[in-house]
């Protein structure tokens, strides 16, 4: 059954309308047959993948503009998740624990002035202003899968630059074995930090070779625009082969260290969230399966891929390691 949507579709959504309509039809049809749905969804994927992507509304006046960037530097052959979902369904506990909280509350975050301190085991420690960061690092678009530890996923066109290239210029010392990163601590801007759901500020970390890997980027935008606050503005990490919580948001400090640094979720529940947290369908979260995931916008679950589909690029980083133990 095809249900006509009234003609109140906002002009800003015109590009995404096709997908929007089709997606709703699947949901309506969901009551009818599950088998038929899987077929339809398969069709949706390929159609949406080849047609125009569901773009964001034009940036509001006064929005921070990004320098030009190289489009589609890295892509996947999968439909992008609509902007409204990418920017409306977020885990960013600094702004509340509901998925819709960040979009609602993150307007209080002030992203200018903003600096990121690069310190620790580097020859040239430097505190870099966000606008300098944008100017000094050639930006490119990277369309990556994002797999949340909660078993849902998206495909997001990030704009950013490789973290490794920047770190190399700052000359890590031989003692630099890990990178420790810290989110802004500002309870007056981040109401979620007034609640003890996690130990604030949020901290994350990578092994040096993970940080230097060309897929690891610092993202400053998505869908051609500066990052919406709820997505971790003004600068965040994106490590596409790890669960989403590793990709720390609104970064103020990057410290190179000798020992494995503490990480926020690991500190909260070490048996549930490991330091590595590589996407792995064979290692379940103690409380739920990781073998499948729901791609946002799709009805049936799809299989989760080892390293979120980036195994060819990154599996060698973990050669010889027991990934069930080092989860």
């Amino acid at each position: 059954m095809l249900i006509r949507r009234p003609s109140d579709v906002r002009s800003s959504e015109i590009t995404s309308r096709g997908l929007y309509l089709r997606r709703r039809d699947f949901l309506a049809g969901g009551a009818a047959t599950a088998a038929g749905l899987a077929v339809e969804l398969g069709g949706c994927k390929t159609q949406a993948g080849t047609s125009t992507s569901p773009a964001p509304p034009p940036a509001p006046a006064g929005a921070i503009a990004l320098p030009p960037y190289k489009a589609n530097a890295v892509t996947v052959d999968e439909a992008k998740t609509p902007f409204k979902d990418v920017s409306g369904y977020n885990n960013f506990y600094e702004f509340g624990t509901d998925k819709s909280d960040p979009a609602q509350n993150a307007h209080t975050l002030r992203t200018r002035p903003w600096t990121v301190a690069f310190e620790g085991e580097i020859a040239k420690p430097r505190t870099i202003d966000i606008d300098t960061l944008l100017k000094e690092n050639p930006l490119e678009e990277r369309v990556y899968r994002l797999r949340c530890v909660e078993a849902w996923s998206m495909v997001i066109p990030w704009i950013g630059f490789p973290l490794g290239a920047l770190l190399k210029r700052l000359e890590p010392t031989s003692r630099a074995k890990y990178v420790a990163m810290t989110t802004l601590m500002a309870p007056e801007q981040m109401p979620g930090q007034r609640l003890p759901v996690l130990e604030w500020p949020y901290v994350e970390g990578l092994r040096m070779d993970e940080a230097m890997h060309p897929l690891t980027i610092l993202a400053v935008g998505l869908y051609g625009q500066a990052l919406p606050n709820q997505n971790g503005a003004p600068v965040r990490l994106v490590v596409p082969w790890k669960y989403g919580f590793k990709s720390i948001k609104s970064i103020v400090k990057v410290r190179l260290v000798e020992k494995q640094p503490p990480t926020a979720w690991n500190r909260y529940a070490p048996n549930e969230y490991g330091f590595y947290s590589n996407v792995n369908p064979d290692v379940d979260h103690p409380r739920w399966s990781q073998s499948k995931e729901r791609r946002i916008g799709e009805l049936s679950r799809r299989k989760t891929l080892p390293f979120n589909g980036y195994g060819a690029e990154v599996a060698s980083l973990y050669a010889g390691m027991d990934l069930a133990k080092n989860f």
Partner: protein
Amino acid sequence: MARPFRERAAKAAIGALALVPAARLGWLFYRDALGANPIAEALNQLGLWTLILLLASLACTPIKVLTGWNYPLRLRRLLGLEAFFYACLHFSMYIAVDQGFDFGEIWKDIVKRKFMTVGFAAFVLLIPLAVTSTNKMVKRLGFPRWKRLHRLVYVAAVLAIVHFTWRVKSDLRQPLAYGLVLLVLMLVRVFDWLRPRRAARGGARSAPSSSP
């Protein structure tokens, strides 16, 4: 003659009212207005309403104990059945839409995941209660036995709270709030059981509350 009618009308109204959240969810789901992950949202809401109605059914006795007001006892069966109805929706949504009838995966979930195990157990415990909710069944089982059987609802409620708590990633405020409500409802019962029995009160207490 007016009284049974009024009573039936009141029950029908409350019964209909409890269906509003399900109808609203169905409508929002159909309109794709449940956000980016409508299945997870619908599952969560159906689970939450199961718990709310279960707690509502468990609140009838404490209200009677605390205020002496009898009327809520007559709604207890209805509220319990509504809770079971939501539990069925919650469970079948998980089976059909969330897992797409992937019974291998479902079985693994139920056996391996503590939070799924307890949720499933809570649901299973509600089945005999729903089945024996008719007056006929009360008679067939005999009231004392029927009453003993229906004490399973306390276990189901505790399991439901545990299911909720284990599901949450780190913000435990909501499950703990519902847990606190259950605790208070149970404490009122304990307080009532421990109270020295007076003949008059004892008679009133053991009357089958679900009788029409």
